[in-house]
């Protein structure tokens, strides 16, 4: 280090942490009724941890919102309830009543499942409670098209993303002004990469769903994806029998839509090591990204994250 340096410079994780905390405090200072979208995945886990740091010793001054599809892994529901208890935050679980009534599910309804439970569910929940700012855990490194995303993303009163009307973001100055009815999605993890997330979870000992670590689990292979048979709602096709394999997940969503990887990495350190030598990107496991390129962009315009 050079001799003029008066104090140590921050590591990359410390700088990312400081930036995310800064963003969260700005939102709390400048909006009326913020909420944190909590999907129980690793990014949500990091986001929640950062929020607890940002507002310590108080609990974060906003609730957690889980837009539920009823099809998440059992282990996710367990962690969700535990974490809400420990953080002292209110947990709002929202399930789209229409999707529930019609029995929308990933096996029979394809992309309608995501549209109704997640996209519609999110809009309904935000409207119902009148939230004007929602933290989301999306990162710019997830996909080529996300590289240009703003940290503060503005939505019209009908939750549409107007790509022609986004604001330049200079320094760490965020313009959170909006008209009545409009809302903001805020992405405090924009500048984190998947590896940063894992390293931070490791360094800060953040609780995560055990499914991220390898263990023997009942699986079937379908359409090139390894799916876990998480409960008896999983309709087996003729000739299919669940096989026990040592698997883990790199991303978690609805269990019938989330592909596992075969792995022996049963500790965080091993997961990070595998990550460092990994040869596929994390989004490979997500069914949602496979239906046609450019579909992410479309989903976002419709209000899906």
């Amino acid at each position, binding site marked *: 280090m050079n001799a003029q340096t008066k*104090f140590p410079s921050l590591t990359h994780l410390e700088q990312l942490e400081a930036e995310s905390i800064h963003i969260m405090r700005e939102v709390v200072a400048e909006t009326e009724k913020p909420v944190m979208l909590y999907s129980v995945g690793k990014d949500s886990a990091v986001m929640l941890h950062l929020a607890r740091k940002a507002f310590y*010793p108080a609990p974060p001054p906003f609730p957690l919102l889980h837009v539920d599809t009823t099809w998440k892994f059992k282990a996710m529901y367990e962690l969700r309830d535990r974490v809400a208890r420990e953080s002292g935050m209110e947990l709002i679980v929202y399930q789209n009543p229409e999707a529930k009534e019609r029995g929308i599910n990933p096996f029979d309804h394809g992309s309608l499942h995501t549209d109704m439970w997640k996209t519609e569910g999110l809009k309904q929940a935000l409207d119902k409670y009148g939230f004007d700012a929602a933290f989301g855990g999306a990162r710019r490194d997830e996909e*080529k098209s996300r590289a*240009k995303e703003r940290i503060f993303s503005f939505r019209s009163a009908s939750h549409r993303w107007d790509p022609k009307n986004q604001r330049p973001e200079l320094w760490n100055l965020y313009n959170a002004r909006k008209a009545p009815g409009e809302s903001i999605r805020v992405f405090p993890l924009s*500048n984190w990469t998947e590896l940063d997330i894992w390293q931070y979870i490791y360094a800060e000992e953040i609780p995560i769903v055990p499914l991220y670590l390898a263990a023997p689990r009942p699986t079937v292979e379908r359409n090139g994806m390894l799916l876990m048979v998480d409960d008896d709602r999983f309709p087996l096709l003729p000739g299919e029998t669940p096989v026990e394999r040592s698997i883990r997940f790199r991303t978690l969503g609805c269990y019938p839509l989330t592909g596992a990887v075969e792995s022996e990495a049963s500790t965080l350190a091993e997961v*990070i090591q595998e990550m460092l*030598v*990994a040869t*596929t990107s994390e989004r490979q496991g997500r069914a949602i990204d496979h239906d046609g390129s450019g579909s992410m962009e479309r989903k976002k315009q419709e209000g899906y994250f």
Partner: protein
Amino acid sequence: MATVLREVPRADEARAELDAYLALNQKKSLLRFLTCGSVDDGKSTLIGRLLYDSKMLFEDQLAALEAESKKIGTTGGGLDFALLVDGLGAEREQGITIDVAYRFFATDKRKFIVADTPGHEQYTRNMVTGASTADLAVILIDATKGVITQTRRHSFLVNLLGIPRVVLAVNKMDLVGFSQERFEQIEADYRRFADELGMGVVTAIPLSALQGDNVTSRSDAMDWYDGPSLLDHLETVPGREQSRDGGFTLPVQWVNRPNRDFRGYTGTVAAGRIAAGDPVLILPSGRRTEVQRIVKFGGYQDEAFRGQSITLTFTDEVDCSRGNVIVSPDTVTQIGNRLSATLVWMSDEPLADHRSYWLKLATQTASTTVSRIDAVIDVNTLAEDEGSRLELNGIGRCVLDVDRDLVGAPYAQNPTLGGFILIDKLSNATVAAGLISEIHRSDPKDISDPGQHIAWIQGPAAGQGAEALRQRLGALGRPVFVLTEDVLDQGLTSDLANDPEHASERVRRAREAALLLARAGVEVLVTVPASAEEAVPGRVLDAGDLIQESDGEWMI
């Protein structure tokens, strides 16, 4: 397709090695850099290669790259790295505003965030946005073309945004036969121009983004070049935060008051360092207090540095809220309601006369109008001309009047207290970026109560008391003048004998001089002895109290 990851060695030895490796990886530093170049200089190819060579690509992405390179690549079937970052063409066609795309890669030593500013129509706006957070700029030059108008424009903007370090990446060296002479000529051309601008440190590197020469490793084709490869340089160059310093500055973001017993002031440290027990001033009030604790998750930390997001508590209950700035007594700031600043206009709607905008500076928001455009700068010729309009991508030197006092600093000194945005009050759009060159008070004629700015320092240690107060006001960025008998005797009172008979006339002249200075916006500290009836207008202060520094609130 189901993915099988590589086998992980599980021996104890391997595990120890893994732990060491992870520990090292946690401790990387971070460098944010901006790439600037004109269309076809090879910017996308260069960024794509950095991503590729630092192994940030996964097999599925590589397979897609190979397929796309064959289909639409410009490199005759070889890997076209530009395709890796070229995800923006479609958006541009749809008219989506893209100002900056951010890319990420890392080596064992550093994580990098690359701000890539596509498009040329919006170049100024995009570049300024990308440059605002950059520690370093890579300015690309096509070796076959040399320094061109765009190079000057990019350099001007990089300099305007105060990026302290520049890499001059002379690309396409393969097309000029890797000629040393050509490289040196371009470097010399550029340095001449950079010196005129007064740019920071410039490092010139000859490279070929297409073939990989001097990108991540030294090239065999240019053995005459003995500097580092681009990546080596990026890995070792000091970041902005290591190279800038200054007194402690913390713009208050939010006050954390969960209950009666706790009141914490949160924010991101913009400059300097702070420790528990340190004295601080709260601006603009100037109230003095002391840091009791620096609170962190589950405990306390002894000290905090620039860049950290922290929570402070004070030893006593003071008035402090969002928008205030907590500083060390030695931090130099300026307080006032009139800003001289460079504005970069970012909206399709031009700057309107007498329209009022929101101004956001650090955590302060105030209402402002642009009262004067002194000059408009042509980014191509760098000429400054008179002008009365500022349109999209226009840059002007302006004067802004604000509806209240702001705490700030020249941008070059403290970017956090010197960089602001303007927000349209109707559309809520961010319409301009501003860089402060100076903050002052509005015209002296506006000072309706000059007595507010006059203090009569009395007591045997008047000179010492005045000096103590002068330092404190100076730290707040106020112009201060100490009016002593010595100063008066140099002219104003040189015709008066120094005896009791002429004492009241001496005071009268001191008062008139003080009033003139106060009307000009100067804080005047009068040390001429005067009775309570004589010491008007203004306030009488006891020098002894000032020396004890017990009270920082006076006149602020």
